[in-house]
């Protein structure tokens, strides 16, 4: 069982309130992603749950037990660090088995569990190596192995993929998602990368300045962002946000339309504009169009669109996918 509840959790460093009154429920077995810009407090929140930092206020409950005064070891959680934090002087086997050793698990059983975890992560040939003799991806997997072997109540991931190259990141993303799904253990995953968030999460928690902006499934957040911040944070390229006269036409202070929900035509419905830059990826075409009254708009068209810089075009947003926001940045529904 691994249900985690946060009630009114606060954290202040001196007078700076880094976490401000966070309330959250993480259901057992779910994959929850904390996402947000640098400095939003997502790592701090994770560390509060882990017990590596003291909360300044509020309650943290794991399986209905208040753990706020408990040391990290007692909480039954395990963590995968951004830098992997492997013990450099120990072999892979001993790295993975360290937690079991601390818990007093007898050697035979310990070795059996380490072997199981290693097999799961394709680490068996490396069990006797030191971390310095491993590649980044392998070290990453050792860190994960160390986390799963103790069969914790929940996994805590602190930006584990940031130090890997792009291709490795994609494959590791899949592995982690598959692993969590097969083990069924609760997972809280911190990242600044919204693609990771969208692809891996059952539920996304968007954080900004120590506060939760919105909680929901990836598609909920994509289709129905509660405010400008969430609307702009998820989705790549970023949603076009237009204020001024054009917005007033739709009775809003700001309107938003995602680049993929815009049709570009040469003469036809929509706002007139001039193409500044066109990027041809083969699979998609990205256009950056200067639209008077809207500024520079980003448009994403599937396939190849034969449009070049300097062309005069019409930008037609799909009105069904138009988002409206009031003067406070909140969504108008």
């Amino acid at each position: 069982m691994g249900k985690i509840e946060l009630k009114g959790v606060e954290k202040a460093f001196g007078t700076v309130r880094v976490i401000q009154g966070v309330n959250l429920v993480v259901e057992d077995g779910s994959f929850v992603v904390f996402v947000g810009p640098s400095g939003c407090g997502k790592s701090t929140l994770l560390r509060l749950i882990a017990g590596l930092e003291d909360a300044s206020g509020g309650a943290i409950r794991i399986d209905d037990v208040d753990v706020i005064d408990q040391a990290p070891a007692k909480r039954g959680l395990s963590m995968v660090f951004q830098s992997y934090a492997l013990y450099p002087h120990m072999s892979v086997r001993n790295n993975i088995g360290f937690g079991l050793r601390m818990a007093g698990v007898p050697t035979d059983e310990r070795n059996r569990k380490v072997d199981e975890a290693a097999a799961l992560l394709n680490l068996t040939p490396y069990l006797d190596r030191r971390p310095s003799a491993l590649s980044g991806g392998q070290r990453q997997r050792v860190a994960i192995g160390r986390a799963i072997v103790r069969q914790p109540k929940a996994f805590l991931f602190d930006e584990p993929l940031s130090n890997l190259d792009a291709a490795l990141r994609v494959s590791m993303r899949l592995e982690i998602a598959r692993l969590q799904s097969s083990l069924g253990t609760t997972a809280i995953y911190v990242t600044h990368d919204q693609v990771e968030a969208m692809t891996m999460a059952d539920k996304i928690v968007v954080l900004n300045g120590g506060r939760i902006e919105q909680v929901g499934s990836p598609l909920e957040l994509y289709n129905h962002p509660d405010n400008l911040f969430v609307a702009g944070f998820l989705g790549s390229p970023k949603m076009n946000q237009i204020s001024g006269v054009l917005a007033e036409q739709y009775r809003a202070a700001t309107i938003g339309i995602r680049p993929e929900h815009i049709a570009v035509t040469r003469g036809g419905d929509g706002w007139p504009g001039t193409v500044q830059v066109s990027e041809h990826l083969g699979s998609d075409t990205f256009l950056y169009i200067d639209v008077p009254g809207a500024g520079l708009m980003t448009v994403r068209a599937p396939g190849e669109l034969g449009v070049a810089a300097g062309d005069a075009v019409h930008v037609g947003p799909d009105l069904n996918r138009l988002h409206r926001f009031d003067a406070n940045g909140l969504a108008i529904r």
Partner: protein
Amino acid sequence: MATQKSQAIGRIAIAPSVAVLLVWMIVPLILTLYFSTLRYNLLYPDRTGFIGFTNYTYFVTNPAFTTAIVNTLVLVGSVLVITVILGSLLALLLDQPIFGQGIVRLMVIAPFFIMPTVSALVWKNLLMNPVSGFFAWIAKSFGLQPIDWFAQAPMLSVIIIVAWQWVPFATLIIFTALQSLDLEQKEAAEMDGAGAFSFFSWIVLPHLARPITVVIMIETIFLLSVFAEIRVTTDGGPGQATTNLAYLVFQQAILNTNVGAASAGGIVAVILANVVAFFLVRAVGKNLDT
């Protein structure tokens, strides 16, 4: 950041060292202050009594005191100048391509690890002895009169011995810092058209300011208390020629068994060290960014 619990454990962990150093600092210092106000000679332990500042006046008006202060400053100053200049030159030399560089470095570093009593006696006897010393032989080979170092130039002799021991320290520190000069900076300077001299003046020298600063500060702390070299070669003489403040206090304490005067002298030494440290840190502190 640490949790409250680990901070509490941290404080317990530090406690013994703080306690021990506190006692080590305070207790002897307070005792020295106390004794400095007494008339107390170990040979006449009964004749003791509070005499206020008399010990201080006695100590300070003693003509040997002024000489000692001057000697101390001369010793420290000269050694600083010699070691910083030679140290920098040697460090720069060691930075050049040399065949067998490791061995040269070992030869240059070695004197620092020699205990002061050995250095002093080897220099005094084997090298500086006016009859059979090595320098005497060199002088005679050129038809010159050998110098009786410790009779004619006792202070200079002591300075030479102390400087010889500390040049390796300066060299090692400056050399280590020199090695940390980014290779890319050198290449960028080359691209910018800097010749060897410009590179040296504009890039190397400023970079060396910091280690030289550290060398000066550290050496000053230790040089103020030079003792063994003097004890073992000149016993402060001839006369007071090589008596520095540390030796003067030692004379009062151990040789004259005048606890009162020696304590006053000790306090003066502490004050001097603090004054020097204060100015040093002030004048040179801007080069450090701890």
